[in-house]
């Protein structure tokens, strides 16, 4: 019974995201064109710096992974706050569905949406810049990509309770999740070649490890890094479990605190 509830909740929350991927073609175009513009810009910067062509491949991989991160922050971490402001959170709380299942549904739907977008961006960018990836290593790429996406979404789940509790002031910090994250995760350059300490700091976000691992398995040529992609995949799996545990704990704690203080349904705060 509980499992059937969980599945129904997960499907119900994943459904609007999957449908939304195709509902408005202009939205899809927009979601694809923005990261693509960013990739094009940085590929031209690499050409300005007379960089070897393999760096263009690195930039394309990094740029394609960014939509996943943005979806995690804006459609996962922020979602409960938006639901609170739109008056849905009390419906969620009073329904028999657990908030963890609701977030798992968002994770499934959001994951589908971003994988579709990232794939489209990758396809266009690869064609545009005539980049050759080692597609024969697709299974290794999946071993890196899946834990990366899952760990990112689990972090999004954990962050959602923080955003819900922290209130409106926290929205200011969202600006720090865009360009600063592009720098710290080495989206457009191999960060482990720049500074190991900086790279380890950047690896607090699993996106850094995911991008690094994908570069190792998909790009031809010598690539300097700290860890082999297998270890990176393993670390991301550990991230995934820790973040899921933390998400469950923080959601329960947030819910208890918010119920006690009466702030659960207090809008615009």
């Amino acid at each position, binding site marked *: 019974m509980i499992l059937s509830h969980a599945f129904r909740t997960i499907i119900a929350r994943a459904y609007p995201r999957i449908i939304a991927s195709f509902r408005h073609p202009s939205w899809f175009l927009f979601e694809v064109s923005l990261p693509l513009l960013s990739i094009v*810009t940085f590929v*031209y910067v690499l050409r300005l710096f007379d960089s070897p062509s393999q760096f263009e491949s690195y930039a394309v991989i990094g740029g394609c992974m960014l939509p996943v991160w943005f979806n995690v922050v804006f459609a996962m971490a922020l979602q409960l706050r*938006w639901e609170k402001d739109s008056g849905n959170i009390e419906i969620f709380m009073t329904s028999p569905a657990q908030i963890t299942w609701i977030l798992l549904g968002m994770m499934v739907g959001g994951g589908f949406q971003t994988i579709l977008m990232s794939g489209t961006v990758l396809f266009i960018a690869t064609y545009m810049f005539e980049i050759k990836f080692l597609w024969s290593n697709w299974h290794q790429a999946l071993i890196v990509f899946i834990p990366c996406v899952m760990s990112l979404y689990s972090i999004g789940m954990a962050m959602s309770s923080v955003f819900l509790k922290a209130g409106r002031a926290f929205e*200011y910090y969202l600006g720090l999740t865009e360009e600063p994250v592009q720098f710290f995760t080495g989206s457009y350059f*191999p960060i482990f070649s720049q500074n190991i300490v900086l790279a380890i700091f950047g690896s607090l976000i699993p996106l850094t490890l995911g991008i690094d691992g994908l570069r190792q398995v998909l790009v031809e040529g010598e690539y300097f890094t700290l860890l082999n992609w297998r270890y990176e995949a393993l670390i991301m799996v550990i991230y995934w479990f820790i973040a899921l545990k933390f998400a469950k704990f923080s959601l329960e704690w947030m819910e208890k605190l918010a119920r006690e203080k009466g702030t659960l349904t207090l809008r615009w705060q």
Partner: protein
Amino acid sequence: MAIRNNNIANGIKSSALLGWRIETNWANIFIVFLVKCSKPFSVALLLSAMYMITSGPEATIYDLSWAIIGVCLWGFIQSATELYSYAIVGEREWFRNIKNIITAPTPLHVYLLGRTSLWVPVGLLNFIVILSISNYSLNLGLDINSIEKVKMVLFLLLGFIPVVSLGMFVAGISLVIPRFSEGVAFGVTGVLYLISGSIIKTNMLPTILKNISEALPFTHWIEIIRYTMFPYFRINPAPYSEFFITSIIFCLVTNYLYFYLLNYARKSGKIDLASMY
């Protein structure tokens, strides 16, 4: 409706104060500036890292300083564009206040001018901080005595006119795209990032993009500022006439489009169409 001059002056003053209070509400001033400046600063760091790791034998430090100046000035364009778009989204969707602003004696464009004025201090702070840190840490060779100061300040201020016009244009688009308006600023800045000559040299772009880029005042504005700041960018003459011609045309077209889109939004009932939540 007759509007006296002091209405406009008071309108700008009070809307600037209101804009400041809205933008700095819920967080302290340090956090506001930290977050607003983090974007161009991170791009400058990103460019420096890319230069250090990826540059080939043909690249020189001049290429990096060329791009860094572009990022410094880009802070003005980015913060202005975002603030104009968010002002419309905020007034229409979050505060549901746009009807009151339209019916008030202060025109909407005057209100927007004041409401979004935070882009000037944010842009200036970006400009000074990024340039100082880059010059110190990357040894770009910027010498205060070699800067053509009067020209630099004059053209920096003149460049604000097309920046404001761009903001008006973005506000106009935001008015007619209710469901989607939050992304307008990102879209416009994303396209301009590529073609405004801020971090990519126009001669590297395909011909059609190169022509569009040279028709934009920002390309020439950024080039003039580079010229006034670094002696090694003074090999070619500064594009003064190109800047004036493109600025005049750009301002006329964008402001016309703003008024056209405002009228269209009012006629079609989109002006207060709250579509988010």
